[in-house]
């Protein structure tokens, strides 16, 4: 029975949360808090299953294939789980579960309007489902469908955020639609050249295609599509506003994970599908590298300009996504390992930082860094996590951020691309500046906040700075950054090596 269940785990990871998401409104009609408990429970189940899946993929040493509807690919759709996306699925489901837990104090079940929290949880759960499906699928069109689910739930979560949320969401809607269309156009061109949509089959049949203009055009469309979705410079226009004004509790998921998974999808297209020995691949990687370098510098410089906590984090994300793209453009084992490690470590760092930002908003309504003065006396755990996560962002060992940059630098040196190493160092120094400015305000600034009225945080147990349901995710984000830093060699050599070496 157990082994039978393990065979179905790839699809159950997506379907169990889906059941929670669609039944949440109906359940909460009968009991206001049961709906949100269903979603949290379903996401916890998905997280447990993703761990089992990763363990069995590592044990088996080869990729899992799950044929949906029992149709043999390329006639039907398949899920393919290998070491790289196995670990990314663990990441998505873990952060999804943590964020659902974290949202709980923001969306207390209200007997008067039970639908408000049910609707929020349903949309949040759909965001997680979309990201899980995006990482699992082995079919180019199925990837588009999941991309739509991610985008649509993202629009919703941004629009129900702060006052400027609807405008930010509308902007993202316009840009995101262009991105999705560009992706679809790229897939359409590949389909016209090969007649198939299955990724493994595409890879085989593209080797025989001699119509180069189609492939080049498809690549251009895919770079634009994924670039918009992952907010790669200069296609980042929607990102700062969307990340600053989204629903505070869902923001960690949006800022931390939503822009990383398209980066993984890009890896899949450019390394697993396209023939990396093609002569023009070098040009394509150089173009991605230029976009990445400009994005890293632009994001770091822009982040210096702002006083709003979320804006600083959002612009820093543009730079950090640049690192991931840089890893792909380096294109050797260390570059890709660094990029995948950076997807993981930056997901925890940015999610954790947005958790702390949401905790400040929840307790004191703080939006700007100059209001942070002496807050650490009242919120020691949150501020401790903030320090750990920020130090990791600037790339200090032994935190995770250091090791992903280390691998990127190793890869760049191996290829003789010393410019990339210089850019890595400069941007680390710049990020040190903007994070130490936050520390300066936090530890040396004048105390400006006053204790809010007691009803603002009635869910908080006495002696705690914020409710336990928020403290646990904050603590875990900081712990995971340390754990990833210490365990980086296991991830790179034990999990990523077999898969990444297989595609190079």
């Amino acid at each position, binding site marked *: 029975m157990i082994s039978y269940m393990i065979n179905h785990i790839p699809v159950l990871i997506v379907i169990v949360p889906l059941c929670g998401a669609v039944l949440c409104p109906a359940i909460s009609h009968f009991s206001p808090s049961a709906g949100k408990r269903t979603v949290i429970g379903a996401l916890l189940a998905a997280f447990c299953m993703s761990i089992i899946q990763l363990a069995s993929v590592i044990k088996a040493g080869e990729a899992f294939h799950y044929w949906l509807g029992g149709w043999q690919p390329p006639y039907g759709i398949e899920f393919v789980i290998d070491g790289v996306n196995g670990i990314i699925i663990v990441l998505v489901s873990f952060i999804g579960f943590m964020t659902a837990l974290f949202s709980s104090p923001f969306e207390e079940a209200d007997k008067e309007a039970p639908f408000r929290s049910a609707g929020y949880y349903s949309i949040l759960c759909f965001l997680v489902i979309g990201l899980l499906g995006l990482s699992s699928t082995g079919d180019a069109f199925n990837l588009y469908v999941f991309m*739509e689910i991610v985008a649509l739930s993202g629009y919703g979560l941004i629009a129900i955020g702060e006052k400027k949320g609807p405008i930010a969401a509308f902007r993202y809607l316009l840009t995101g639609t262009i991105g999705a269309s560009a992706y679809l156009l790229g897939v359409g061109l590949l389909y016209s050249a090969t007649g198939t949509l299955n990724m493994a089959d595409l890879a085989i049949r593209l080797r025989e295609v001699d119509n180069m203009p189609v492939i080049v055009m498809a690549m251009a469309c895919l770079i634009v599509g994924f670039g918009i979705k992952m907010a790669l410079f200069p296609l980042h226009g929607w990102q700062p506003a969307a990340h600053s004004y989204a629903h505070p509790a869902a923001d960690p998921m949006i800022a931390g994970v939503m822009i990383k998974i398209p980066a993984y999808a890009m890896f899949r297209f450019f390394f697993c599908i396209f023939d990396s020995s093609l002569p023009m691949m070098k040009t394509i990687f150089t173009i991605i590298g230029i976009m990445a370098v400009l994005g890293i510098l632009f994001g770091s410089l822009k982040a210096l300009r702002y006083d709003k906590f979320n804006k600083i984090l959002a612009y820093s994300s543009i730079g950090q996504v640049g690192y991931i793209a840089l890893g792909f453009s380096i294109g050797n084992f260390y570059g890709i390992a660094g990029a995948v490690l950076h997807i993981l470590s930056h997901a925890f760092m940015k999610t954790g930082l947005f958790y702390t930002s949401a905790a400040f908003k929840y307790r004191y309504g703080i939006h700007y860094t100059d209001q942070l003065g002496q807050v650490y006396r009242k919120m020691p755990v949150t501020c401790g996590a903030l320090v750990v996560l920020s130090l990791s962002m600037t790339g200090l060992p032994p935190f995770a951020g250091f090791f992903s940059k280390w691998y990127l630098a190793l890869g760049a040196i191996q290829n003789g691309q010393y410019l990339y190493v210089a850019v890595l160092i400069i941007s680390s120094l710049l990020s040190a500046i903007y994070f130490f400015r936050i520390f300066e305000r936090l530890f040396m600034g004048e105390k400006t906040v006053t204790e809010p009225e007691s009803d603002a945080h009635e869910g908080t147990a006495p002696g705690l700075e914020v409710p336990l349901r928020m403290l646990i995710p904050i603590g875990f984000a900081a712990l995971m950054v340390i754990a990833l830093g210490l365990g980086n060699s296991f991830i790179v050599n034990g999990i990523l090596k077999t898969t990444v070496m297989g595609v190079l």
Partner: protein
Amino acid sequence: MEKKKIIGAAVIILAAVAAVIWAPDILPAVGDAESPVNSYLSTYYIENSLEDTGAHNMVTAVLADYRGFDTLFETCVMFLAGITALMVLSSTAKVDKSQREIQEPYKASFSGTVLDTAFRVVVPIIVIYAFYVFAHGETSLGGGFQAGALLAIAYMIDRIIPNFNNSLGNMTEEAAAMTAGVGVFIYILTGLLPMFNGGNFLQYEKLPFGAEHAAELHSTGIIMIEIGVVVCVMATIINILEVVLERTEFDD
């Protein structure tokens, strides 16, 4: 917007258009039997879809069976659109119901024979047609999405002609969203049932019903997911309609 930005955008668009116009022949000619699109997967679908799925229409076979997993998430997109519309507009206050009572002089203009007859004749036909499209969906083009939209239209006519005072009953926006969720759940359940019988997700031939041929089970599976799609699409359209109507002031 500044002039510079507009000029920049125009240059990029023109360059893209020029690239498309001057690009060499990158797409195969329409109807080219030798092109990869027409000679690879399509051949398999044309030769085997009737035998595999029992669906006489190949589009339905691909949509609901070979790629049924995509259609599940397309249905989810509908549900998500409805619930997002509800959440985004939930901060806008609803119009007071007493304000919406139709004034006496206007009432006369909506109780005309034409509207009354039209309603009595049109709505039943639409509903019957919806059931026809749904039941026929497995063998011909169409199916769940269209049938759901038709049922929603029947409700919509009833709802927006003020004189009838919702003779078909009035769904609240929350109830509509819940129903849409249940519709998607019917679809998921159709996919989960074969898993208890040794099949994969959405593998209709492993549905735990007795049948002589696998094709019959495929037809049953397609009909079951179509029921889910009908419920979801109908409820989502009603959901969005109600969300907007509840917040719109009528003065005529």
